[in-house]
């Protein structure tokens, strides 16, 4: 089953890349997609039995505007700090640990990358359930994980504990 999914995804990607729709190039595309789905179909979809992937993708797309806003805020924050003459008084970097309740890899990676992209925080590592985060100041450190984990838990439909 996952071969089929990978093949369809890859062929769609090929059509976007190629932009040539004559028979010869389409045949090459089919061959290439088959090759890739033979070589690495176990990478994209790990358990092919899982349902509701499309809904997750759709919710992820809806998540993008919010994260874009966060990136903008975060860069403004860093910009303000970087150009501030007394920058060293403004920042108080520290390392924070917190536990997450997200289970799946996809959700955790989304959370980690979102944390990296939001103001004043970078994910350093994930060990077991514990996220290690470097924060620029106490204020942002106390706000973790906060609203973001809620949102991501809703995307990946993980029930609350």
């Amino acid at each position, binding site marked *: 089953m996952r071969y089929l999914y*990978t093949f369809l995804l*890859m062929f769609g990607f090929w059509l976007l890349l190629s932009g040539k729709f004559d028979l010869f190039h389409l045949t090459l595309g089919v061959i290439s997609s088959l090759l*890739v789905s033979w070589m690495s179909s*176990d*990478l994209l979809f790990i358990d092919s039995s899982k349902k509701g992937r499309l809904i997750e993708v759709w919710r992820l797309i809806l998540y993008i505007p919010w994260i874009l806003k966060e990136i903008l805020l975060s860069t403004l924050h860093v910009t303000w700090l970087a150009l501030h003459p007394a920058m060293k008084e403004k920042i108080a970097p520290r390392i924070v640990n917190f536990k997450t309740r997200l289970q799946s890899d996809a959700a955790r990676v989304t959370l980690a990358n979102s944390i990296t992209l939001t103001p004043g925080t970078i994910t350093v590592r*994930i060990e077991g359930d514990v996220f290690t985060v470097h924060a620029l100041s106490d204020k942002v450190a106390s706000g973790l994980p906060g609203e973001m984990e809620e949102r991501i838990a809703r995307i990946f439909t993980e029930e609350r504990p």
Partner: protein
Amino acid sequence: MIWQIDIMILTLIVICGVFAISVKDLLGAAVVFGAYSFLMCLLWTEMGAVDVAFTEAAVGAGVSTVLFFAAVHRSSRQVKARVSGRLLYKWLGLVASGLMGGVLFYASTDFPDWADPASPASSHLSPHFITQTLTETSVPNIVTSVLADYRGFDTMFETAVVLTAGLAVLIILRLGGCRTAGPVREKSAAIQTAYKDSIIRFVTRMVVPFMQLFALYVIAHGHHSPGGGFQGGVILGASFILLAISYDLKMALNRINEKAALLLANTGVLIYAGIGFLCMLLGANFLDYSILHRILPATDEIAARSHAMLGVEIGVALTVMVIVMVIYNNIVSNGTYEKGL
């Protein structure tokens, strides 16, 4: 050529070049050299040499930097300070290299201007390529047709050189005899096992299939856009290297083990030479593809050349992909295939 950007990039490149030599920390030098390659590729694109830029991006900026890291990983990171020579010799060396540089600089004034239509290089052969390629081979990208058809002999031996390089790495690193009993057969841990750095692994998993498809696209569309067998092969090999880096070597070796890899590498060269011999068997010159229209269905002489070029590109891609992988796997594990980066 856009001279404003040109000057800026050149300045950056010279700075990078000087410091890539003078940095004493070898890992740091590798990083600076990577930046140098990135900028070099930018310079090629900016001068309009798109295919060269693609090769530089794939080989120089991508794979060779990774190979440097692998080599530093297996050897030492420090430069041995060597106290050598008298001061006189150092001065002599400086004077000699300064003179040589001066002579080269003086000679560079004799070069024709950039893209000068009256220069010897572009007054004899180039007009033929530029005006006739499309009618003779029906391939819009002139560089591809020059490399794979007009100068096909050259490219065939380049592929052979790549194969030889891979074999040389194998021979040198295995001098003490094969340290493992044949190719690794044990499975690596399952993909979904929770690792410590699950972020990198997850992103790798998502990225690698797209990378492989992109590489295949580059190979298949060498006729129409920059790229071709060599660049696509390197990107394919790089995707396996990425797997080997972020998981472990066994992950990559489970997909293509050493035996299969070397078989594929030789098959690549064989495809290239085989197409050449096929032409001979049909009664034409070696690598004269136009004769192939007799056995390829539904083609005339021009289309046969185009299709044969695609076959040749696939051969090149196979060899290059596998050799890049073999070189990385051997350098990073010192020839034992046990632990990667």
